């Protein structure tokens, strides 16, 4: 990859190596996100079986986790911020859970 940068953008070899070293993780998450999007889109476009929504939901969940953990670098943050990230989603679960207790038992 760094050779590509050298050839295509005329970067010095050292710089290209440093740059690629820094971009490796974001690039990996980018590829993973696109693959997961591909799965979701494929499932949505073909609709092979009626329970396919579970796969779609699972793939979305993975995408959310990847953005949070890799792109937003939650794992690099102190435990406190990690806790906050979890708390946010937990509170969404409270909102959904308690409301569903109403609608699922009507």
């Amino acid at each position, binding site marked *: 990859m760094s050779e590509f940068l050298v050839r295509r953008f005329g970067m010095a070899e050292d710089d290209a190596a440093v740059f690629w070293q820094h971009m490796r993780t974001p690039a990996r998450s980018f590829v993973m996100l696109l693959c997961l999007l591909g799965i979701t889109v494929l499932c949505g476009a073909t609709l092979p079986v009626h329970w396919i929504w579970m796969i779609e939901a699972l793939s979305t969940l993975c995408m959310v986790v990847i953005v949070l953990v890799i792109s937003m670098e939650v794992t690099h943050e102190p435990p*406190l911020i990690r806790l906050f990230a979890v*708390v*946010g989603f937990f*509170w969404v679960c*409270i*909102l959904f859970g*308690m*409301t569903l*207790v*109403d*609608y*699922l*038992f*009507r």
Partner: protein
Amino acid sequence: MSPLDSTIRDAATAQPTIGRPKDYLHEKSTLASWFFTIDHKRIALLYLASITGFFVIGAFAAGLIRLALVVPNGQIFSNDTYNKLFTIHGVVMVWFYMIPSIPTTLGNFLIPLMIGAKDLAFPKLNLTSWYIFMGGSLFTLFTVLVGGVDTGWTFYAPFSTTFSNTWVIPALIGVIIVGFSSILTGLNFVVTIHTMRAPGMTWFRMPIFVWTHYAVSLIFLLATPVITIALSLLVLERGFGIGVFDPALGGDPVLFEHLFWFYSHPAVYIMVLPGMGVISEIVPAFSQKKLFGYRFIAYASISLASLTFFVWGHHMFVNGQSEMASISFSVLSFAVAVPSAVKVYNWTATIYRGSLRLDTPMLYAMGYIGLFVIGGLTGLFLATLSIDEHVHDTYFVVAHFHYIMVGGTVLAFLGGLHFWWPKMTGRMYNEAWGRVGALLIFLGFNVTFFPQFLLGYLGMPRRYHQYPPEFQLLNILSSAGSTILAVGYFFPMIYLVWSLWFGKRASANPWEAKGLEWSTSSPPPTHNFLAEPVVDFEPYDYPIKARERV
């Protein structure tokens, strides 16, 4: 005045005026230095002035409501005027007084002082949130005064989206804007408490006041966005026909109520928790005794802030939610009583065998404990499904939440204001007037609201301005009480303002209280402490320890 008082007060005069370092009040005195200040203490005073104004407006509307209810046939105001009056009272008191009251004034002033910081983490954001608050609240005030809104403070769909003929959209927009100010305040507090504590100020050395404000900030942050979106959906539905709750299309207005109460029930704890923090400071100081069960109160604050998100459905027992939901919400509502009771027992245990001084702040604190117990216990009645079916939407509910909100929040606010008044202004108020005011408010409050429990239990519905003649006696009693309450409120407004110019100068620690805020001068310098404090003492380190026999 007891001899103890006079020795404390005399210490105040010992501090010379000349040679004092400049404090935050006298650093600069131009108008711009107030309106563009980023000092948390000055912003707290800006908030204090604004919410006092809103309190007066809301109280005036309440007075007119009580006036209308003196006669049973509703001759004093028309139906529409009466509806608009209680909407003004509800909207102004809930959104513009109760919710911001203690956090934005006492909280803003004291949190950095109590944790030994120079300021909040984001001072400019703090000022911004005041401007957002003023913009939103004045806009809403204009709306409810000029156009009038008749939905009550709850804005239930489909009445608010389809049927009401009043200025609902501007009122909604104003409330949404004020929500952002709450969010920014909460954000500032959480970040400050996490990152700005002085060396040695560990979590379990923080005063309970800071713990409760941390809990309140969590509620601000986690609940407010949900009501923002719920009210925005109302605006879209009413203004543009982009509706998701419209029953004519098959939508479900109960869904709006779920979203609304997901915020608005926790909002009750936004009002109550800071009050609990204030009481937890006053009670040990005036008992000169270590706070009983410090850790339990700290944990109880956090657990109240979390549990409160699981109980919103108890506002909707008769609104058509499923029976399963009603039962779950009812059971969970009982659970909230546990941490609340923990606090009450802890305060009582702190008072027990303490060296009591019944000064004004302590009078308010004692009043708070008693009224909060009544309000809390009647809350348990209402959490019981079968009783709620009977008293739902009656004056029983009105009396219950006024015992919590007025008996709780307002008394705590006034108590805290008196307790920290010397710190905020550098002046002492007149103690005798203070005590008379506190007693009048306690008396007036009970005469106003206790009859409403009886009225509600007998079946008088809320929000009606006509009622059967047999209810008139209790209604007159309630209205008479409200005049005593009004007179009581005038007392602090007059003598506190008077003290700004003529009060005795206060020493750094007029109450012999413990805590970092009392270690700096009164009023504090702009950056709070002349040197960064180092904390090497435990909280509430009062002379009388919990287990000692006196």
